[in-house]
């Protein structure tokens, strides 16, 4: 009996401890098909792949998604259909609120920033990183972080210049990949961060970088930022540099939304095929050759400006049910299966430089030359040069008119109107003040933490 007792006691003890001995291993279950964060960034290729994902995410935002929001807030598109729960309908009515706003865009821009900050924090963990690669990767990170932060502040805050010291609330600035909650920084602080990132990018970006950001992209983006800050001197200097570099050539065709690499394009989003289409949100919402009733259509006021004879660009637009109560317009600018999306291109900078020259009281003939390049391409054989004696104010109107037509539905015009309003011009956007609260998107309810200031709502209609 004693022996039996011993045998069983030992057996039980072994059995019980057997589980204990292997417990740690048995509980260390790792997810299949996912890499653990600690193991994810071991090589330069890993970091490069993470950086590539930032471009990927950024491209999926600038595929029309963000541009469409600016257009919906402005005067170029007609009211989308009133279908319940439609975000576009809510944005067009300038009625976003914390339960229905552009959550996806807000999150994804910050997710892109999170990825970049992860690179910044972990790049030194990689053993095979050359100094050149590190310099380039960090510079591209600064470039993309600046751009994401800038896109956020444009949608969720009043423009630069809305207050004299730009102390009005902007968006949270995120410089770390952690869980610390940041409140809204002032618009001035956000722009300072954007410019600091761009300067860091310009300092280290390479001259050539395949389809990724190069030094010209950095400068071009900074020019756009400065222009929107009404810093015409800074914007003109950079626009001059880009235009005069000779790297980019003004093309004969005004269609920049194509599959290849147009010679006037400085930076574009790359689509490699139907299933890798970075123009999806333009195509899905505007495309009219295979859809009689697209979600987004030009407004009557835009059509009245754009559908004038002799302008080759008017071929982009079509009237339906002409003269009837249910007359509406279609936009054919994006009637393709896929294309690259040009975000920085020479047409923009020609118009920018022209306007800057006028604003800075510079050489009028130079401004006329710039805008006439655009006009000549648009009016072709019907082109008539601008009278050199044109008044500065009329010249500015002409430049802005061309900007509205040339960059139509690219998300530019509404921002220009808001910029001009901040500069002190008397601007109405679709019958409402340029700075009415509804021109800003509301923050998602998830931002509702202690001290977070939400945007006022309504007041635009």
């Amino acid at each position, binding site marked *: 009996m004693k022996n039996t007792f011993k045998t069983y006691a030992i057996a039980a003890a072994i059995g019980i401890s057997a589980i204990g001995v292997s417990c740690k291993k048995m509980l260390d279950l*790792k997810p299949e*098909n996912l890499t653990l964060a600690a193991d994810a960034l071991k090589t330069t290729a890993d970091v490069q792949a993470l950086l590539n994902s930032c471009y990927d995410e950024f491209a999926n935002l600038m595929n029309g998604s963000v541009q469409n929001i600016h257009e919906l807030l402005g005067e170029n598109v007609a009211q989308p259909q009133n279908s319940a729960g439609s975000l576009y309908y809510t944005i067009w009515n300038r009625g976003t609120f914390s339960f229905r706003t552009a959550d996806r865009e807000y999150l994804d821009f910050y997710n892109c920033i999170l990825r970049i900050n992860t690179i910044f924090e972990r790049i030194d963990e990689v053993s095979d990183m050359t100094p050149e690669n590190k310099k380039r990767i960090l510079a591209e990170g600064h470039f993309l972080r600046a751009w994401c932060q800038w896109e956020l502040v444009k949608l969720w805050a009043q423009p630069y210049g809305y207050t004299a010291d730009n102390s009005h609330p902007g968006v949270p600035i995120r410089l770390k*990949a952690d869980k610390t909650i940041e409140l809204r920084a002032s618009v001035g602080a956000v722009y300072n961060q954007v410019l600091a990132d761009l300067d860091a990018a310009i300092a280290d970006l390479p001259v050539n970088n395949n389809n990724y950001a190069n030094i010209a992209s950095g400068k071009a983006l900074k020019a756009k930022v400065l222009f929107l800050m009404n810093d015409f001197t800074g914007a003109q200097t950079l626009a001059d540099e880009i235009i005069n570099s000779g790297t980019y050539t003004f093309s004969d065709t005004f269609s920049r939304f194509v599959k290849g690499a147009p010679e006037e394009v400085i930076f574009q989003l790359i689509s490699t095929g139907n299933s890798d289409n970075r123009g999806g949100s333009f195509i899905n919402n505007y495309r009219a050759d295979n859809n009689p009733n697209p979600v987004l259509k030009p407004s009557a006021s835009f059509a009245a400006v754009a559908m004038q004879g002799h302008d080759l660009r008017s071929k982009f637009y079509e009237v339906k049910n002409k003269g009837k109560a249910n007359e509406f317009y279609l936009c054919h600018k994006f009637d393709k299966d896929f294309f690259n999306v040009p975000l920085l291109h020479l047409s923009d900078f020609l118009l920018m430089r022209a306007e800057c020259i006028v604003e800075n009281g510079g050489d009028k003939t130079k401004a006329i030359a710039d805008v006439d390049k655009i006009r000549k391409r648009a009016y072709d054989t019907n082109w008539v040069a601008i009278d050199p004696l044109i008044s500065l104010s009329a010249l500015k109107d002409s430049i802005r008119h061309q900007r509205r037509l040339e960059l139509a539905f690219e998300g530019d015009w509404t921002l220009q109107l808001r910029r001009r309003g901040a500069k002190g011009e008397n601007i109405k956007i679709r019958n409402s003040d340029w700075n009415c609260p509804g021109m800003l998107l509301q923050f998602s309810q998830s931002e509702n933490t202690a001290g977070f200031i939400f945007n006022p709502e309504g007041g635009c209609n």
Partner: protein
Amino acid sequence: MAQNPTLTGKVKNQNGKAVEGAVVKTATGETTTTTDVNGNFSISLAVGNYKLIINAKDYQEATEVVSVTAGQTSLRDFTINTSSEGGEVVVIGYGTTTKRDLTGSVTSLKGADVQDMPTSSFEAAIQGKAPGVQITTGSGVAGSGTLVRIRGVASISAAGDPLYIVDGIPISQNYFVNGNNGGFNNNPLATLNPEDIESIEILKDAAATSIYGSRGSNGVILISTKRAKKGGLKFDFTSRLGTSQPTFRPEMLNSKQLLQMYQEAWENDGGTGRAPLPNNISWEEAEKTNTNWVDETMGMGIKQMYSLGTTYRKNKLGVYMGLTHDNNGSFVIGSRYKRNSARLNLDYEPIKNLTLSLSSSYTQGVNNRVDGAWSGGFGAAMSTALPFYPIRDTSGNYWRPGAGSLNPVAIRNLKDWRTTENRTINNFRASYKISDKWSVSAFGAIDNMDFFEDIYEPKAMINTNHAGIAKRSPRSNFNYNYNLITNYNIINSEKQSLDAMVGTEFQKSVVRSSYIEVSDMHHALYKGEQGDSASTRFERKNATEAFAFASYFLRMNYKLKNKYILQFTMRTDGSSRFGPNNAYGFFPAVSGAWVVSDENFMRNFRRNNFLKVKAGFGRTGNTPNENYAWRGTFTPPQNSFGYNGNPSIFPTRLQNPDLKWENSDVLDVTVEGGLMKNRITWELSYYNKTTNGVILDLAVPRSLGFSSYYDNVGAVRNAGLEFSFTSRNIVKKLFTWTTQFNIARNYNEILNIGVYTQDAVSGGTNDTRVVVGQPIGTNYLVRFSHVDPATGRPVYLDRDGKETFTWTNNNRVAVGSVLPKAVGGLTNNVTWKNWNLSCLFVYKIGGNIYNSSGKRQNGVVTDWNMTTDYFDHWRQPGDVAKYPKLSMQTDQYGLPPDPYQYNTTLFLEDGSYLRLRNLSIGYRIPAKWFGKSIQSSRITFTGTNLLTFTKYTGGDPEIARDFENPADRNMSSNITYLTAPQEKSYNLTLNLTF
């Protein structure tokens, strides 16, 4: 005179323990003896057959026939069962005890308690029968899930369901195996055959549940299946036939009424001419059509069940076999749940003191699915399927303008949709009694479920020139555990006993899933995989998910003078769901019981009465639902499309190595008693449960770069009272009447949620929030004041209570909760001769219902149908009406440009109800009708949900809608969104034992 032979033996209880002081006497009362401390007795009897009666305090009287032979000392042992006063056997974690010795809070139900009602899943039949257990049956859709809450809900993002353990294995219980696809959550418990259940124990407090440690926080439900008992071969056959009808039919507008409403809205908005109608329907067409979509989607279902149970017990072998076929047709046309189930339970003693037990079951559940709720079907009949839409166009084809859900009949008939679950639950136990004091047991179990969802969409449905598309989502869940347990009786004297149990256990669950899509098919994949020549097959394997628990546990029971009982339990759990910083949790509990009526000072009282006090304090826990919530992860390169032709990787979750157990500290005090020789028994309990480190899947500020994050934030308190009594009002030979009543009041409060606001966690798309100082599942809504008689516009209240025409989410306030104030049930059983009548009322007091679809039905006029209740709307100045003027414009209601935002208290109602849950009338057919071949037979007529008393105007007040995730399940019971009503059924059951 020759000396009489001697009969000697031992009297033991059902646990094999010696019973001291048992009286053994002949039926005539001539000869009597009493057992000693070891239960032994010796009695001198003349040769012959005797009927012996064994009596012992706290035990049921037992009668046995013995033969006494000349010149021999006969040996005979007796086993007696503890009495209902406190001796009833109760299954507890890793063992059994008696009700008398129980220190924790446990409700025991017999299998018959869940077999008396025709529910497709056993847990639905618990409703009203267990105090403190709130059961909300999903809906009348076949196979739908049930919401079970034990003593409130303590978790928010982690699952709030109790842990279900079948014959020792914690079964996989994922309600979201198929998300809420089609407006429906799969019920993981539907594959457990109610006919196999012997007993159900519901463990409620820490004294009872802490032995399950990390997963006992929301209570534990132990299910024991049938095993062979005494007696040779016995068959039990049950057949049931029944009907299924809705308890409520939504009253939607017909064509004429709806057209009038459209026109009125149009004219109110300043429109001239005829109102535009949705989907380009002309008025001429609309006036010619009047489809009653409710009738087209809800009818009467037929239910059938056939069950054969066989038990055999002889010598060392016990066998139970069960075969059941269930076929539950729902009133929702096209919805049906079929179940075929087989079970084999074996018990065998190959050598003395060694018992081997095997339990094995296999069930196939086939659910014929239709869309419901927001996904279409009857949900469309209550919303987007308008009465002026035809089923078929003039050519005889299904009328299908774009969005498919506009014609639910077409979708139902075209789409072949079914889910199949093949589940097998098996366990094997070997128990060896080393000595009278010491035993060991080894246990291993496997619970495997293979789940397939098959959807076939023919070309007529998806508007293609090709053949249709067949989709299949297979998912297998392999779950196993094993444990080693040893029991040792350290002290066993006349006055005191001390028992110890030590054990260790490991459990692992692995889920594998994939998705298959085959184009150009002519049928669903369950009918074969052969498509036409153009078929292409796509298959994606999803990430495998797994979790594991490794545990040690200990229980010590000390009993003094059979009236002071002390229990200590502890469990250490290690979980794969936490990082190394917090992998292990410790869950102790101490509890005691005092049989007050056994004290001398109660001598006069105890003769006819029983009184016991018990109290316990301990800790239980919970883990997040996600398996890898603490780990920081990146996508691997092969899973990403990349950019510019180059690969990309990116973080998918930030690491939180500090994520830890959600801990509940639970105090329970219970007093139980019996009066008038236990003609009345009662129990009163108080509990207080504080849950700290509540796991929240936080909706964090999106500026962090991610949208949600698991963290331990905040605290929740549940406190309550439970009372139950059973009264045997009349106990006569031919007439008995028993009443059972229970009521439970639970108080629930969120004590804090850290730095986060009420929107940090939301109940899915529903308007319940987490508000400090309020219960989980607080309705957080803008208050609707009244309809302005002058303008017909809705008047809201702002946060300060001032009237305003403008709705803004800043004016949302806490306006009550979906959690009830009290729930319970009242059962009456009457028997008279061969007849019996049983009647169960269940009730719920308090708890709001939010009719979330009401805001679209009876709100801004859109492309939804309306209910007849909407006739009570404002028409002209001076009108006092329930609803505002009709308008198609959101700004007329002061809303943002989105009619979905009309979430106001206008659609919030009191959800109290009293329901005749079950009424059955049975007749026991006299045995002489069949002769000897049939031992007993019975015919029963049962009606369920026959009557409901409620003030709720929106339909059926018992609501558990389809949920999006565990947080939604915890927070949004009683929110209805086109949810199907419950089922009313009439059934006829025949039971034969032979």
